[in-house]
């Protein structure tokens, strides 16, 4: 067979099962867009390459499979960098394909030339600069294999224009790239872990995003039950243990429950599964559960001991390892420890006014959204106070129902990620909870949303501020507010209508929750602008750099608890 590089690339993507991808065309990548013409692959035209990158991320976070985003050379590639770095930090499988200037022009400061390979080196799992059409046959399957194997991550492929145009003759197609099976965990590690777990008197599980990536939520829940162990989740693991489960101690860390932080310091064994001891979760590392024996399960050997020395490491696939542990672990009962957990949970609830008094308090708002949206709704967030309120107050019961930028914490993630989620989960409702700061960062994707007509509701928690910045300035910078307020606020409902979407601004005086329910009940996409109190703080909060048990909580008298 004889094909151009562009056609080879398209056919390789089809052979990988790619039926949808997101991108924006440009000069260097035109040959590939020509090859896409008439292809079965559905191309989602974003309005900024960062939007395309996050659309692909939304697809990958829902499906667990590598998704593809495209950009042309130069500014197209640089616009993708944020979404690629975000995928790196949250371990999301992504294949980012960029075009490059023709090889003869590389290094000449050509039009729309940047060193994409050099720029993506530190933010990818691996990257390629393809030097011939023949190389595509090796690189593309390998890119997918790398993106999906072991610890998932983004792979960048830079393809010069002359490679796309060149013709290549070859006999056979390569096998599509697939996830490689993970080598089994060493029996000695399993045996050592079992011995520790059998001796535990006050065990806790600390679940991370790796449980989601490994499809091991059910096994993790069974392990918690078997060990009778209260369980905490990082932001990336919310939903792996259903909110409200008797063993659920919610999120740990900077905005986790105070009772949770206290309990963790009393544990004698902490079993971290698919978690990486990120500083948002641990607080001051030296004071994070200093007395406990730490067991650490991870597919990435380099994570064991990176932040916190683990007494026992288990390297391998989460589901496989937990399965082997469960085969030999006798059921445990720790009634006093469980009672202690329940006592702490009851003593340190999330504080907020009753719904009747303050329906638009963010905690009440999140709970109302959870009651109103279908059970299988997917929630994406942007970054800031609204993100933490969703994490604290929205009851997630399944993995891959909260899509949020954890590691990089990228404002602008929410809307395009919601679009990608809706594409990957047809028929399911998607809600993007955003803030008035974040929503502006990829607002242009409202045009993409309108074009696609997907069932995405964008709910803006509007406090006319960069809320979390204001909060930090209030609490830690002597109320010296600097560049954290928006003195002029756009009319987001009007902007949505301008993009061709339903848009509504909620009137806080007139049964606001009913207005929100009405807006959510409508067909297709919409934007709901909800005014919230400007000086609300997300609490509890551990001051940056402090130990988790030094968490600040809400002042006592203000609110009743539930």
């Amino acid at each position, binding site marked *: 067979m004889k094909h151009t590089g562009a056609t080879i690339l398209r056919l390789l993507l089809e052979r990988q099962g790619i039926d949808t991808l997101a991108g924006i065309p440009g000069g260097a990548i035109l040959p590939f867009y020509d090859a896409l013409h008439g292809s079965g692959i559905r191309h989602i035209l974003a309005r900024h390459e960062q939007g395309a990158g996050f659309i692909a991320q939304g697809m990958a976070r829902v499906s667990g499979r590598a998704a593809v985003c495209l950009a042309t050379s130069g500014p197209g590639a640089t616009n993708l960098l944020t979404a690629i770095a975000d995928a790196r930090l949250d371990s999301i499988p992504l294949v980012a394909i960029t075009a490059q200037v023709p090889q003869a022009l590389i290094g000449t400061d050509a039009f729309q030339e940047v060193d994409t*390979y050099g720029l993506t*080196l530190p933010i990818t*799992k*691996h990257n390629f*600069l393809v030097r011939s059409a023949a190389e595509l046959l090796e690189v593309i399957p390998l890119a997918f294999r*790398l993106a999906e194997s072991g610890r998932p991550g983004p792979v960048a492929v830079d393809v010069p224009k002359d490679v796309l145009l060149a013709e290549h003759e070859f006999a056979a197609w390569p096998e599509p790239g697939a996830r490689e099976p993970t080598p089994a965990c060493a029996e000695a590690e399993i045996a050592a872990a079992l011995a520790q777990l059998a001796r535990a008197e006050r065990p806790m599980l600390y679940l991370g995003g790796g449980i989601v990536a490994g499809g091991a939520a059910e096994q993790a829940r069974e392990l918690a039950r078997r060990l009778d162990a209260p369980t905490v989740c990082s932001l990336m693991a919310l939903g792996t243990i259903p909110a409200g489960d008797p063993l659920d101690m919610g999120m740990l860390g900077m905005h986790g429950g105070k009772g949770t932080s206290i309990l963790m310091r009393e544990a004698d064994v902490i079993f971290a599964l698919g978690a990486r001891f990120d500083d948002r979760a641990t607080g001051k590392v030296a004071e994070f559960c200093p007395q406990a024996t730490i067991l650490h399960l991870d597919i990435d*050997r*380099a994570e064991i*001991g*990176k932040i916190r020395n683990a007494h026992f490491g288990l390297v391998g696939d989460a589901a496989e390892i937990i399965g082997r542990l469960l085969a030999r672990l006798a059921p445990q009962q720790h009634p006093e420890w469980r009672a202690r957990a329940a006592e702490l949970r009851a003593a340190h609830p999330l504080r907020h006014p009753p719904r009747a008094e303050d329906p638009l308090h963010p905690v009440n708002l999140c709970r109302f959204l959870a009651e109103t949206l279908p059970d299988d709704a997917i929630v994406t967030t942007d970054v800031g106070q609204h993100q933490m309120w969703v994490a604290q107050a929205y009851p997630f019961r399944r993995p891959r129902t909260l899509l949020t930028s954890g590691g990089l914490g990228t404002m602008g993630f929410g809307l395009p990620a919601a679009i990608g989620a809706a594409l990957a989960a047809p028929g399911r409702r998607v809600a993007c909870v955003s803030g008035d700061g974040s929503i502006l960062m990829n607002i242009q994707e409202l045009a993409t949303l309108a074009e696609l007509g997907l069932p995405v509701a964008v709910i803006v928690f509007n406090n006319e501020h960069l809320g979390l910045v204001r909060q930090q300035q209030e609490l830690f910078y002597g109320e010296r507010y600097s560049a954290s307020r928006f003195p002029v606020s756009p009319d987001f409902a009007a902007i949505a209508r301008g993009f061709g979407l339903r848009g509504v601004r909620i009137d806080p005086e007139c049964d606001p929750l009913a207005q929100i329910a009405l807006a959510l009940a409508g067909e297709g996409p919409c934007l709901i602008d909800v005014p919230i109190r400007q000086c609300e703080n997300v609490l509890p909060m551990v001051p940056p750099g402090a130990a988790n048990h030094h968490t600040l909580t809400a002042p006592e008298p203000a609110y009743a608890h539930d």
Partner: protein
Amino acid sequence: MTEPTSSTCSANAATGNPLSAARAVVLELRVRNHPGVMSHITGLFARRAFNLEAILCVPESDRTLSRMLLLVVEEPQLEQMERQLAKLHDVLEVRHRADLDAGYFGAIRW
């Protein structure tokens, strides 16, 4: 990489002795040979803030693979650095060269 390169860089120039002899460790890597692999390795050291004192890189005879010698200092994070190096797709092997020390690089004639 298309030809042998060697360079010596040290963060401890203030000591006057360009290569610290104390607690030096030589790592040998076997890597794929293509443009960009050296950037990968040196970039990794830079962004992990781990001291890379000297580096030598030479292709193997068939030129698809290269060997690298890295002079690093025995610091607590060394094991973590080795694991990070091993994670790179272009790095096929990482091992200690207990038979070499800073003197190996010191013998280069400039």
